[in-house]
């Protein structure tokens, strides 16, 4: 099986979420997916752009979809849900013939041909499939209790994302099960972690991420599995801040699903960037015999 798609890493992929980018590329390679990075891609504008103006946001995102099409890619995948939401929204706007000229006016280019976009999570679940993953597992994650946390926008709003269940998504749960892990029924799968409020309004993050950690802890979660750079950063890097604000003492590793999937597929700790995580998952992984 060979799958070939364009790849949009997103800005955090070369900064705060390097390990997500690294493990995504490594896992895809292992699963026979060829990712071709869009040459000279630019920032999608993230949350700040759409809070300022919808056409500006669409133009910043559309630049990448148009670029990808010019480079011969019909479909682009991105690991980041925030990039995905922006790129998808832009796609919808340029498919709308009444709206397209507004975007083209800012872009100063035609948006007639543009690539479509999906998440790497969707690509892996739908195009590779759970059976193929099961067959490729060489290091089962048995004896590992994980909670999968999707974050608020991977599946919402459903009309836009068109993937999985908006209230009870299962894609990561199923991948982790296919890898042999015990997946806990985490009730806050799609609740918000505090998103980008970390810098301007830290108390929002310590409250909302605190709730997530409380519930994960009450389920005896050994590892929280995420698919979003912002969620991962709030729960992992800011876990100390959350603890200090709430008087808790959690020490729960928070990893990207591609990191655990990669380990199960036989990639090394280094190949999935484990050392980049703040709360060290290696003791639990060793105990479970994965490392």
């Amino acid at each position: 099986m060979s799958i070939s798609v364009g790849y949009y890493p997103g800005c955090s992929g070369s900064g705060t979420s390097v390990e997500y980018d690294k493990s995504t590329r490594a896992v895809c390679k292992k699963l026979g997916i060829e990712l071709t990075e869009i040459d000279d891609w630019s920032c999608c504008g993230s949350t700040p752009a759409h809070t300022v103006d919808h056409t500006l946001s669409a133009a910043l995102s559309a630049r990448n979809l148009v670029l990808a099409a010019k480079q011969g890619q019909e479909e682009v995948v991105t690991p980041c849900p925030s990039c995905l939401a922006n790129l998808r929204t832009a796609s919808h706007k340029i498919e709308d013939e009444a709206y397209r000229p507004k975007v083209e006016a800012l872009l100063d280019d035609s948006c007639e041909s543009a690539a479509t976009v999906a998440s790497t999570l969707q690509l892996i679940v739908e195009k590779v499939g759970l059976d193929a993953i099961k067959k490729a597992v060489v290091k089962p994650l048995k004896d590992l209790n994980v909670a999968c946390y999707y974050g608020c926008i991977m599946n919402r709003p459903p009309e836009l994302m068109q993937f999985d269940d908006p209230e009870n998504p299962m894609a990561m749960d199923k991948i982790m099960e296919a890898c042999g892990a015990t997946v806990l029924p985490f009730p806050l799968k799609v609740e918000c972690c505090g998103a980008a409020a970390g810098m301007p309004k830290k108390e929002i993050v310590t409250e909302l991420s605190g709730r997530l950690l409380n519930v994960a802890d009450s389920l005896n979660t050994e590892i929280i599995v995420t698919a979003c750079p912002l969620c991962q950063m709030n729960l992992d890097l800011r876990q100390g801040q959350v603890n200090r604000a709430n008087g808790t003492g959690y020490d729960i590793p928070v990893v990207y699903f591609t990191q655990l999937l990669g380990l199960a597929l036989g990639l090394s700790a280094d190949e999935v960037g484990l050392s980049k995580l703040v709360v060290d998952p290696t003791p639990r992984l060793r105990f479970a015999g994965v490392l």
Partner: protein
Amino acid sequence: METIPLNSPDKDFIREVQERSGQNVQSCYQCGNCTAGCPYNFAYDVSVSRIMRLVQLGQREAVLKSHSIWLCATCQSCTTRCPNSIEVAKIMDVLRHMAREAGYATERNVKAFGDAFLESVEKHGRVYELGVTASYVKKTGRFWTDVDLAPAMLPKNKLSIKPHEIRGKEHVAEIFKRYRERDAAKENR
């Protein structure tokens, strides 16, 4: 709950919110689902369903001066759960656009962070995380409130000390330039 004195309805305000969001605000029947699921409600001064009601009543000032519209994280819970399929999160976004245009920014730091982020994109074509932090600190005159993260962060070597410049950064800068020209043209109409 704080009481909000009602002014006579500003019909232009209602019309503008509807046009810019493409949503029919009158179809809201105040069930409160959006507020029940809003993770930011604990930090809001006006709940999201109340914002909807105030928009229906044409209360421009009360809405555009609320803190809530700046705190909303576009988590899409309200949009997903509204029984009338109102894209509530889109309305919150549009209200923020209108507040910006009216010169209101009740959450200065949130606005400063967004501005710092976009300036970085305009300058480099991609976001330069350290640059955003520095510029945010400068805009708000605040001490970096995340210094306590440094011991965890620095050894991970994640933050590049140089921006990632792209070849097409002029193209990105031009998108911003045309956007500003478009807005200036609108105002002069």
